[in-house]
């Protein structure tokens, strides 16, 4: 296939948290609010003159200093962010919207404060409390946290307008991004898709890490380009896979899978499009904040949600996506040392295989997975097994 016009530009944007578009927005007087987790509704960070940056630590090398502070058997994402923060990589931020959802990520936020990683006078770090289940009272608790511990802090520190009207305006822009990415994402359903999993991962990531206003023109143009893009005559992949699991902000991970002969057709992981790129439909009868909070709780696929309905939802979503996107198998992955996904992956990888009858590959992985020879071997073996299954199913025809 012909290269996407802006792909290299997008790749460059992902080389730094503080990228060209972030700098541009800052130059225009906007406030950058960092966050790491779906539990913080992205749209709330895009109100008034603020813009959201889902923070990453691209091109991470040594994380020795963070390891001194956080030990060597804790989440590498949390450690990589701590290291990058110590290096000054997040000095551009004006605030950090933290959630106390998983202990290791929470400690990253705390180190941010303890080690004084950002010296701006009004800089803030929030620690919002997250419910474990979706009930009437837990939704109210979540709304309360978002109001008191996030929006009110933004107003207090920077005078940000967090009114209902401001939130609704942010939702409009957010929805346009979501519509574009959903439309592009749907293209992966085709037998011979016009977009690779890697390209989609890049597009999705720039939508999380760049100011919406500035990335939108590029996304619009890319959508139009894809509508006219011609796929290769013969698909360059031997199997289609869906990914389910914890945080992946490294597109090289998707590239690694695709280099092994698979096509990633679905991305149900933190930083993926499910959840995250669903359009938020608001009614006029209820405050926007309440609707948004409920929406995020209902759509969350985080393994931290303990209630039976959410446990079932996660399995159903994985099954539904794999079916909708015609996947041949599912890769269950977790960031090494992630407690929530460690338990979830171990159990559900069996359930998806035994009950839902999906071929499953179950892996844990480092933050930087590209250079992992072990993972490459496992992906290659999985692709081969899927291929053999398909050949057997087709009576010996490839």
């Amino acid at each position, binding site marked *: 296939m012909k290269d996407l016009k802006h792909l290299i530009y997008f790749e460059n944007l992902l080389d730094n948290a503080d990228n060209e578009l972030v700098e541009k927005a800052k130059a225009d007087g906007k406030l950058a609010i960092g966050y790491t987790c779906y539990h913080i509704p992205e749209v709330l960070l895009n109100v008034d003159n603020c813009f959201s940056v889902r923070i990453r630590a691209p091109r991470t090398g040594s994380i020795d200093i963070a390891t001194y502070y956080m030990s060597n058997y804790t989440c590498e994402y949390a450690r990589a962010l701590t290291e990058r923060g110590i290096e000054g990589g997040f000095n551009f931020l004006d605030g950090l919207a933290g959630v*106390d959802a998983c202990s290791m990520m929470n400690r990253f936020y705390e*180190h941010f404060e303890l080690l004084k990683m950002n010296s701006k006078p009004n800089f803030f770090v929030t620690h919002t409390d997250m419910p474990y289940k979706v009930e009437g009272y837990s939704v109210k608790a979540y709304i309360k946290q978002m109001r008191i511990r996030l929006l009110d802090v933004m107003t207090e520190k920077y005078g940000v307008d967090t009114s209902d009207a401001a939130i609704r305006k942010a939702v409009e822009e957010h929805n346009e991004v979501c519509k574009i990415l959903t439309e592009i994402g749907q293209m992966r359903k085709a037998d011979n898709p016009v977009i690779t999993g890697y390209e989609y991962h890049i597009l999705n990531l720039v939508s999380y890490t760049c100011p919406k206003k500035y990335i939108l023109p590029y996304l619009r143009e890319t959508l139009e380009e894809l509508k006219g893009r011609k796929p290769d005559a013969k698909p360059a992949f031997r199997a289609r896979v869906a990914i389910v699991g914890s945080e992946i902000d490294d597109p090289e991970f998707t590239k690694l899978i695709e280099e092994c002969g698979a096509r990633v057709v679905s991305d149900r992981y933190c930083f993926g499009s499910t959840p995250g790129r669903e359009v938020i439909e608001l009614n006029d009868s209820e405050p926007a904040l309440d609707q948004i909070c409920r929406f995020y709780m209902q759509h969350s696929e985080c393994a931290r949600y303990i209630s039976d309905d959410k446990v079932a939802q996660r399995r159903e979503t994985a099954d539904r996506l794999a079916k909708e996107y015609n996947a041949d198998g599912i890769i269950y992955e977790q960031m090494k040392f992630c407690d929530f996904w460690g338990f979830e992956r*171990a*159990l559900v990888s069996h359930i998806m295989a035994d009950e839902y009858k999906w071929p499953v590959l179950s892996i844990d992985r480092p933050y930087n997975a590209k250079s992992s020879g072990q993972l490459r071997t496992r992906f290659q073996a999985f692709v081969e097994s899927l291929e053999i299954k398909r050949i057997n199913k087709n009576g010996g025809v490839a």
Partner: protein
Amino acid sequence: MEKKTKYPNPKFFRAKDNIDWKAQIENFKEVGSIIGDMVKETDWKAVKEKMKGKALNTLDRIKKEAASFKQMSTAEKADLIKNGEKQLGKLYRNGDMATVRREWRGVKDTAYDFYEWCRMWGMLLATFSKDLFPALNATFYYRWMISYMCCVGFMDKNTLGQRGTALRMSHTLIYDIFRYVAENLVFLAKCDKKNGNSAELNKKVVLVDEMTMGQIMAGFPDLLGIPYQLMPVFLVSEIDQLTCVPYIDAVESFGLPADACPVPSSECGALVVDALPHMGQCFISSSMPCDGSVMASSYMSRRFPDLPVFHLTFPVRYEYEETVEDGAEDIKACIKFIEEQTGAKWNWDAYFAAMKRFNQETAFELEKWEVNKTQYPQLIGPVYELFRKWNYEMDGGADPRVIKTCKKVNKLMLQAYERKEEPWVGKMKYRGIVWSCPAHYYANFSNWIANCWGVDILVEMESLNFTKPMETEDKEKALMDLARLYERMVMRRHTNGGYKNVVDELWAQCEAWNIDIIIMYQNVACKNMATLQGILDEQARDKGYHMIWIEHDLMDPRTVSRKTMRGKVNEYMRTVMKAEPVDPTLLEFDDENMM
């Protein structure tokens, strides 16, 4: 006059069993065939040689002890007879599962110790005789049941080196814990579908996750709340260091990463190897104390899909006042769930009565802290810590008998304080605090460190929990207080809600207790603590505290053995403190196979 009610309800013991004897016989046959295979496959010649070696070794030891006694001066002999032995390392022998003999504590204390030994066995036999057959049968299904037969040995390990009032207090406290254990073992066996299969009792049983405090059940006096995994996993791992190893291996083979906390890992592993009884009317799972525990409940639902589950979850940022009502709401929902599942009704009078007792027990606890903060601490050692945790988490004012124990112990403690007694006679050299979670497989570590180096652990992090009196009149306020209490359960109080609760709190406690040495446990799988190691290290250095880091793997002694744990202390004391051990025989000994 208030009507006295027996605790636990005698009806629970009398509930009719429905033992399937046919299935039991099948199981006996299977166990019998395993034993038969073992007998066949055993190299009896090697066994004979080993026994002979041990007998010779014992003979040699007796000779040496006799010779050593003979060489003593009259004063030394009198001291030994009166005050007991001082070289405790001689009680250990390579490869043994127990000490070579019981400790000689002097005439009076040995006699007292033996009396308590008899009293403990008497209580155990009396309790099991309330319904013997299910419990006996359960020993053929669950290996952890066998480990409980060593509970008297556990008592010995925890009181090693203790004399006088300290010994009396320890025995009084541990008796209550094991009475609770014995009663619950009987209930587990009665309810288990494979054993007692008592439908009558099962209707009354609410299983509560072992990491969930028991106080909520105080409002249901007609029901029996059982901390489900406590006996098969948590507590037994303190008695027998090897109990959880098969659980951990099983769940890791299943696919769980080895870096997960051994508590939820072992709980899930116990499900994998079918080591948990099938019982109860419903199950209360919880999000406590940490991330790993949150996830174990889905394994439970998977194993017992017929058991309705309520997930009791509390805010992590528990110091935000606006979150307290969210916790209270969840408690209300949990009460409603129990009512729906069991048909029982929440009883405020019963709840308030239990909370009044709990408040009394807290007052007794605070008195203990006051004494231990002085120059003459009295109640120290592992038994006190175990009692505190059990009393705070599991009993929680439910059992009226515990008040009597608290009164007795505090009376003894105050008398000893007035006499300025030394709980570890001649071994009061350093004031220590334990921070982070201790290793289950080395529950008596604070006993060793006192006997070997004279480091007296005055308090442990896991004891320093919620001490505000619980509301006993206003219902809404009572629920809020209950939420506050749960949010500050053992471990969670410190590891959740922000680093201040565990870092700043440590320095505050060090000052309050006038601490010289911090024993900083490092459970290699505890991410909440691991992510603060640099900060703790830096601040300890700045503040000039001696902090000894001791790695362990909570329930898996293969990762870091007891010997390695001791080695960390030995190294620090020799090289940094330039100290001499109080009992050099305890520096190096082998207890790898010991229970």
